[in-house]
């Protein structure tokens, strides 16, 4: 089979691209979690600011990823930088929204009881509010992960790293040798990576969500 021999012949290249793809998404996600948490902690206490954050997140999600990529070519050129910016931008949106929703959903009585027994402001955030909002935040991370896997594929158009390059190279060599195989490898690879990353995130949830607040044991 052509596909099989394509995969075997290019296994090094495929591994490398997969690794780059995963690495782009994971790095952007990590950055996005940090950014979202900082933003969410800044706004969640004010209803107005929370609404603004949610609104921006909703509007941000309507912007087509390809449009943002196009906009960024002018200032940032081609390569890793615009890819990273685009993927991080979209990764932030669902996480930010879920972080705001999760943090404002924490029972105020619990927060007050934390303050009432002398737990400081920052410590309350980190040891009480964050763990309680964490399941909702992590759901946001999973949504982001799945979404940015696909967006990362589009960033290959600006010569970003990852499996998208197989799709675009297949497209550009339309009808040429192995063009279909290249596209299939790109698509299936992204699906598999998304699946693996999601399993990994579910595992992280298992490890980090307290049994006391898990929905089902």
């Amino acid at each position, binding site marked *: 089979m052509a596909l099989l021999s394509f995969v075997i012949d290019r296994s090094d290249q495929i591994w490398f691209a997969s690794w780059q793809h995963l690495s782009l998404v994971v790095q952007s996600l990590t950055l996005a979690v940090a950014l979202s948490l900082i933003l969410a902690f800044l706004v969640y206490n004010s209803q107005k600011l929370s609404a603004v954050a949610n609104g921006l997140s909703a509007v941000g*999600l309507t912007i087509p990823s*390809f*449009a*943002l990529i196009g906009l960024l070519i*002018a200032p940032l050129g081609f390569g890793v930088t615009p890819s990273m910016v685009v993927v991080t931008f979209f990764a932030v949106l669902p996480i930010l*929204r879920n972080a705001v929703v999760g943090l404002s959903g924490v029972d105020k009585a619990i927060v007050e009881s934390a303050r009432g027994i002398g737990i400081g402001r920052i410590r309350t955030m980190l040891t009480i509010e964050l763990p309680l909002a964490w399941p909702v935040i992590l759901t946001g991370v*999973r949504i982001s992960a*799945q979404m940015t896997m696909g967006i990362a594929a589009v960033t290959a158009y600006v010569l970003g790293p990852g499996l998208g390059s197989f799709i675009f190279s297949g497209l550009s060599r339309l009808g040429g040798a192995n063009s279909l195989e290249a596209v299939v490898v790109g698509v299936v690879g992204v699906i598999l990576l998304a699946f693996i990353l999601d399993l990994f995130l579910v595992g992280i949830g298992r490890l980090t969500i307290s049994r006391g607040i898990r929905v089902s044991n």
Partner: protein
Amino acid sequence: MIDTPRREVAASGTTGRSLIIQLAAILLALAAFAIWVATANLSSTERATLNSSALLAYTGEHLALTFVSIIIVLTITIPLGILLTRRPFVRASGTILAIANFGQAAPIIGLVVLLAFWLGFTFWTAVVALVAYAALPVLRNTMIGIQSVDAQLVEAGRGMGMSATSVLLRVELPLAVPVMLSGIRTALVLVVGSATLATFIGAGGLGLLITTGVNLFLPSVLVSGALLVALLALFIDWLGRVFEHYARPKGL
């Protein structure tokens, strides 16, 4: 993979004022763009690409892709979603949702290109890809919307002597409408954004401006394309919100 609705939460916050602000912002940006195109110092190639009739044609193609796709999505997935909540098919619903969720993980750009290899580089290929991509939110929200109708209300309807069909039409569906609407808006936004990629298989749309801008190294065309696509997406989202706002049954 993930069964949490993606944009549904945000939808609940839609208010009359935010609708006006969104529309005003879009119109303002559009006006600014028009003034810029009219006054900027553009090369002849750029001006040729950015003339108003060409822009209108691209926008028309983009809208055609969007609305043809969404209409097909609605005609397929709403009946399917209803069917999957009916007794004989309920057991299949979990499997179908799981498959749909898994399919959602496929990158849309890959889907478009792959289908083009098979179906040719045409408008309809792009439509097929978009339909496949946008079906999930509508399907899922239709099912969730109907399933989350209070079982007591259904029982009350049956108790009054209504037939299963009339309970569906007069109780279950009206109560499911808000959730279904938010799924439809999600699909609409997905489609209008993804239609940008149709340019890669020669199916037109505003994405063409971006690829042209990159291929011929015309930054102003590139930025114009990106800006117009973003504004169009925001406008479609606005339409969806308006529709959602007014189509929602009163009293819910």
